């Protein structure tokens, strides 16, 4: 029993690090994309406004929420493994 709790705690900490890394990466990719879009021309207004508006959209978008899968997928994999190994 202790082992499961330990796995849950360490797993949560490790996955939180991964979550943080992935969200930083994803935000960085989106910012770069917005900057390149603006630099390609044809957009009115200032560059900073365009980027911050786009980033605001990203903050409330689906893509950012999908990063939660970093937590969900490993838990599903563990549950499926437990089932296949012990109950088949």
């Amino acid at each position, binding site marked *: 029993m202790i*082992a499961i709790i330990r*796995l849950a705690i360490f797993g949560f900490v490790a996955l939180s690090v991964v979550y943080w*890394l992935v969200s930083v990466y994803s935000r*960085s990719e989106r910012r770069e994309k917005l900057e390149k879009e603006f630099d390609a021309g044809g957009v009115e207004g200032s560059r900073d406004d365009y980027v911050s508006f786009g980033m605001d959209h990203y903050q409330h978008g689906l893509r950012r929420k999908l990063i939660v899968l970093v937590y969900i997928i490993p838990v599903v994999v563990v549950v499926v493994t437990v089932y296949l*190994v*012990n109950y088949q």
Partner: protein
Amino acid sequence: MRKIKWAFWIIVILFVGAFLHYELPRHDIVRITNTYNRLTTIGTENGWAYASPDTGTAESATTRDIRFIEAVFPDNTVIVYRNEDTGWVWPPYFKYDSSNLQAMAGNLKSTEAAPKWVSVTKYGWRFPFLSIYPNAISIKEVAGPDVTIIPWVPIIVLIVLAFLIFMARRMWLQFWERMVDPAIAEAEEAQDRARGFFGRIGAWFATWRRKS
């Protein structure tokens, strides 16, 4: 220098390959001949190949009762599996049904005259020199000794690992491009500005010196 680099990468690849070969599940088509428990003493040289002491079937770090399964390959070479829980950390099989597996193995025992062929999923190596045994994960009866089993789990795990390495590399490159390179550029710019300032002082000193 290039030779050292090559040697380094070859050693890394060998270690990673051996590690994956040990940890990933593989299938054996065998006929089970015997199942039993044996009090086994584990030393420091082979402790890494046994269940860690806090799992269900491992009562002690040094001496414990271990379930074994003896089997025969179609070509009459033999193999001995251990049957231990893996616990909840490593390797991540989360196996805790060793007793049931032992009962199944006992039920599938057969003789050479009336063979029952089974597919044993196992991980690990059999090294008689170190007294280590592969750990049996599951047992399934199969039609005959010639069935082919597609190793889906290793295929999927290797694809996922390759994807994770690819993503980690992309994240690293992105970090370098967006954070480190601009910081270096800024530092160089600042240095240039500083050189301009001290350059001006130097020039001023130079004019002063020339006067005197």
